[in-house]
């Protein structure tokens, strides 16, 4: 496959080490001062990543030279905008080793999940070719307790609308999925399995291919939530095993307002639309309409062309670094963080304590100090982290935590920043524990 050969050419075996100083020079925001005059230490890329100059330039270049509504207009700018948008689609397809006709632009990963969930409830009234997507009483949708709300609530809602039953894999105390009862959960009643490809809380990378194989054996469809995997590890849709993959641009150095649904072509061909309106139709009459083939069928309205162009530039940036190298860099930072945090008394990490099948989200709870308060002390030191349940409330419940503090790493983070995090946590302990020893 050409795409694969290109990837191999770009990535030396094992992945070259990232030149983090050079990378940081591309992110102007990392040079700004924050509270207390401190330099920003940005450990919240799992929520949204920062954007390199190259991505901002690509978006600006689109607006300054080719801006027009893509797929409309009989003028030169319209043609150029359309080309730019479609080239962006092809670029993103290549990033995933897929083909352009399988890439649907959405506004976010969340919308991409909803697209599939609503297409499934629309399937009941969309003719025989959509039949395989229809669910109803007696059918089951299988998810996991580790899901982000974006890959959980849409399925709950689908089940409520259709009368299907929602089931889920539980998690073990270390955050990994409990797959022991896969035989009971994945049955001929299962119509769709939706599973994270990397947890945004514990970093756990579930065996998606293995789950998908079991699901396919029962005729079920599989959707993988790649919001935390596509930005951080090489993802090849031809090997993933899933039928659908969703992710967001803004978590992978790209702009906000753009996300992607990748789907197997024959499924997209048969799937009814979710959002309807302009530019997804074939013929419109007053009483009925017919729709275009994918990807257009799923992209109603004027597309976010500048954002798509920005996301394509983000793919260029990441591929130039090499996704293997990106993953290796983050693995080293994660190992360092797990080690540094393990030395802090009263700290419990939510998730595996080693980097095997684990990404770079490091969430933790501290005895006696609420995550909001930890985050406040860290913020005072210039360290940006996420606090709360990170849109994964059931997972927190399962792991016995009301909420947590989360650090996430990306290409621009350094080992010094990991040390600063560990120091900051100790300062928070000092601040809240001083004079508190007598507290009831």
């Amino acid at each position, binding site marked *: 496959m050409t795409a694969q050969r290109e990837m191999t050419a770009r990535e030396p075996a094992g992945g070259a080490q990232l030149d983090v100083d050079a990378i940081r020079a591309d992110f102007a925001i990392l040079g700004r001062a924050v509270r207390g005059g401190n330099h920003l230490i940005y450990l919240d890329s799992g929520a949204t990543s920062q954007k390199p100059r190259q991505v901002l330039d690509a978006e600006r270049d689109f607006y300054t030279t080719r801006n027009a509504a893509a797929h409309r207009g009989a003028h030169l700018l319209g043609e150029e905008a359309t080309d730019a948008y479609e080239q962006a689609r092809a670029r993103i397809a290549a990033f995933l080793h897929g083909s352009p006709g399988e890439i649907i632009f959405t506004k976010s990963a969340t919308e991409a999940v909803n697209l599939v969930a609503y297409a499934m409830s629309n399937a009941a009234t969309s003719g025989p070719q959509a039949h395989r997507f229809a669910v109803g009483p007696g059918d089951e949708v299988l998810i996991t307790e580790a899901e982000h709300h974006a890959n959980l609530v849409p399925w709950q809602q689908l089940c409520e609308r259709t009368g299907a039953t929602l089931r889920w894999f539980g998690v073990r105390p270390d955050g990994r999925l409990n797959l022991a009862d896969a035989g009971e959960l994945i049955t001929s009643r299962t119509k769709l399995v939706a599973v994270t490809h990397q947890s945004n809380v514990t970093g756990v990378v579930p065996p998606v291919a293995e789950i998908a194989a079991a699901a396919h054996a029962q005729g079920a469809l599989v959707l993988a939530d790649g919001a935390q995997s596509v930005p951080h590890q090489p993802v090849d849709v031809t090997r993933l095993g899933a039928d659908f993959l969703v992710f967001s641009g803004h978590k992978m150095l790209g702009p906000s307002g753009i996300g992607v649904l990748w789907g197997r072509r024959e499924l997209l061909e048969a799937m009814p639309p979710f959002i309807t309106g302009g530019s997804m139709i074939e013929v419109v009459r007053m009483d009925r309409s017919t729709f275009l083939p994918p990807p257009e069928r799923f992209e109603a309205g004027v597309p976010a062309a500048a954002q798509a162009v920005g996301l394509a530039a983000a793919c260029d940036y990441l591929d130039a670094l090499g996704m293997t190298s990106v993953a290796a860099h983050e693995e080293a930072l994660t190992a360092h963080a797990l080690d540094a945090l393990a030395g802090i008394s009263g700290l419990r990490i939510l998730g595996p304590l080693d980097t095997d099948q684990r990404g770079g989200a490091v969430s933790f709870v501290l005895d006696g100090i609420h995550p909001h308060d930890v985050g406040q002390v860290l913020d005072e030191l210039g360290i940006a982290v996420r606090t709360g349940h990170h849109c994964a409330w059931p997972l927190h419940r399962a792991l016995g935590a009301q909420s947590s503090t989360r650090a996430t790493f990306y290409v621009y983070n350094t080992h010094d920043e990991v040390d600063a995090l560990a120091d900051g946590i100790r300062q928070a302990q000092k601040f809240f524990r001083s*004079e508190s020893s007598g*507290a009831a």
Partner: protein
Amino acid sequence: MELESMYQEIILEHYRRPLHAGLREPFDAQVQHVNPTCGDEVTLRVTLKDADGEPVLADVSYETLGCSISQASASVMADMIIGKTVGEAMAISEEFLRLMQSRGTAEPDESVLGDAVAFEGVSKYPARIKCALLSWMAWKDATARALDERAGTAAAAGPDGDREQE
């Protein structure tokens, strides 16, 4: 360090040794409020009694699951309003809301707010304002329900004009 402007000693004191904490019987209304962005929760009960025909807060009891700011705020609130008339407590609550929405620019009236002036520093941190307000909002809700309850039991008296001005 700026931190001390938010975490004033009074706040830390209430956080470490919260006043009036725990849920008590009897009560006229109970509510549960959640801050969906962080999952913090408060369960709060209000007990009213009549004093010269005016409703008085006989007890406000609560249980919180949250950060130091939300816990301290519940403690300060309960300590200030228990024993006050609903009208007096509402006035304090309005003044506290004004302080919290001021982004650090208000001059808090200590004669009205008492210990609650310590939350002035919190108002400079938009992400934490909800923490400070969580229990106040729960109290307002619970009180409105308790008053409704009383109006309901006294409702034989006929329709009131409450909604006409809306």
